[in-house]
């Protein structure tokens, strides 16, 4: 709140025109106008859908590949250069190509989002799985646990704390991925709304879309944190 008051005061005292820096009161008014027109929620929903889909695709691939890499050092030696190379390509450079390859619809945005989510989740999955103490694996073997039982009863629960770290990063990066795709080619979504409003010199409209994106990123982060608390609540329970 103090930040908003300071922002309002800064704009009013400096006399900056609204097209350079609109005060929060103007941004608020623009938000109400856009919300009243109805399109704002459609754009928000489209971006949210792309983020969620990108997150699901990115996390699934990263988790599967992460498991294989963690369990097989020889596979890691083969795949590591390609995985690192895939992350050295700036997403903004490859996004236009993905639009050409997969069309300008939702699929390309989902894939761009998945691409940016992939790496942090993969790295954390590998680190998490490798951090499981070896003696616990020995214990599972002594109990004649199957591979599936070891995976579900030991590997996943034991590596979840580290994996959630990657998931939190991935959840916020997914927002960036979706918006980068929308910047390149889109007719809906908050990224499109930013492009449209920039073209109309409607700086307050740009701020509205940016704040909604911040809201989506916080929502994603909070959702993962909530999931983390639910799934890892046992860590905080006092021992009987």
């Amino acid at each position: 709140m103090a930040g908003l008051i300071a922002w309002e005061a800064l704009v009013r005292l400096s006399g900056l025109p609204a097209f350079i820096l609109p005060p929060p009161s103007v941004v608020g008014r623009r938000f109400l106008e856009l919300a009243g027109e109805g399109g704002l929620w459609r754009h928000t929903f489209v971006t949210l859908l792309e983020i969620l889909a990108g997150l699901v695709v990115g996390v699934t691939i990263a988790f599967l590949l992460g498991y294989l890499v963690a369990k097989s050092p020889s596979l890691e030696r083969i795949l590591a250069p390609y995985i690192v190379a895939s992350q050295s390509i700036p997403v903004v450079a490859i996004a236009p190509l993905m639009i050409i390859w997969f069309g300008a619809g939702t699929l390309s945005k989902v894939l761009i989002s998945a691409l940016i989510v992939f790496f942090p989740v993969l790295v954390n999955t590998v680190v998490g799985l490798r951090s499981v103490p070896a003696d616990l694996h020995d214990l599972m073997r002594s109990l004649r646990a199957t591979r599936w039982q070891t995976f579900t009863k030991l590997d996943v629960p034991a590596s979840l704390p580290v994996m959630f770290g990657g998931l939190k990063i991935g959840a916020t990066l997914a927002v960036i991925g979706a918006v980068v795709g929308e910047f390149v080619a889109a007719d809906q979504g908050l990224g499109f709304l930013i492009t449209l409003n920039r073209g109309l010199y409607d700086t307050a409209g740009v701020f509205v879309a940016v704040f909604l994106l911040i809201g989506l990123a916080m929502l994603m982060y909070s959702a993962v944190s909530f999931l983390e608390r639910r799934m890892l609540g046992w860590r905080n329970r006092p021992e009987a």
Partner: protein
Amino acid sequence: MMKRPSPRPVLGLVGWITVALVCSACASSAATVAPERIRLPMGYIPNVQYAPFYVAVDRGYFLDEGIELEFDYAFETDGVALVGAGELPFSLASGEQVLLARAQGLPVTYFYAWWQDFPVAVAAPIESGIDTPQDLIGKSIGIPVLGGASFIGYQALMRAAGVSPDAASLEVIGYNQVEALLAGQTDAAVVYANNEPIQLEQLGMPVSVVRVADYVTLSSNGLITNEGTLQSDPELVRGMSRALSRGIDDVLADPDAAFEVCKRYIEGLGDGDPSVQRRVLDASIEFWRSERAGWSDPQAWENMQQVLLETELLKAPVDLARAYSNDYLP
């Protein structure tokens, strides 16, 4: 024996000449004003379409006006915003950008119409039989973005031809019109008449081109400034006009020489086969011919405003008398 002439008078003469030269140099440097360094946002990457600027800089026409021009290949909207904010004195911008910016309170004024016609067009494979806006009914049309010159041009074209813009389905494809047409993703695409059709032909896809300019006159690319600069330094504004006019004249008179100049400003233009870019230059030149250099047609501004109002990109008319001016032409 001849007497050797005394060196003293010679040395004295040399001394006086030296003193005179130094004084003259001092006087000259005091009278010469250093050129004003001006960064000009261009709106696009280095390209042969900027040939008049390259030629004018190369031949010192801007320096003659006391301007040291520096090219800034920034986005068009950023350039307009910087000029509107008074951060830069000039930018290149299309007519619709000026009206949209003024509607948001940016005090920008267009003072030199470089492109006399709007270069946007709709291109389709030649065998598609698309030759008029009516032929686009029921077709899918790729468009880079739902805004900017491409969108305005498409809207103006269809409305001028009496066809509803909604009669065709627009598909946003980014700036991938060439790829979209080659891959058959859309039936047609909104392009720049002086650019993509030439690339497509080179890649083996001859296209028919429905030019916006054949149906309606719209204010196109030109130089803009802000009201502050117009009031404080009108001669600088006229200097920009004069220098650009000389550049355009030179390009029109000798496109081959202009293309050679472009090679010094565009990395890679001199490598490989330059024929496509040479044809882009020729096609662009056709948009620069005018009876009076830089003159803005009032009807073109009326038409542009009308399209923006009809598409609701403008909520209310702006004062056109302040949006453009013909008072600063050479």
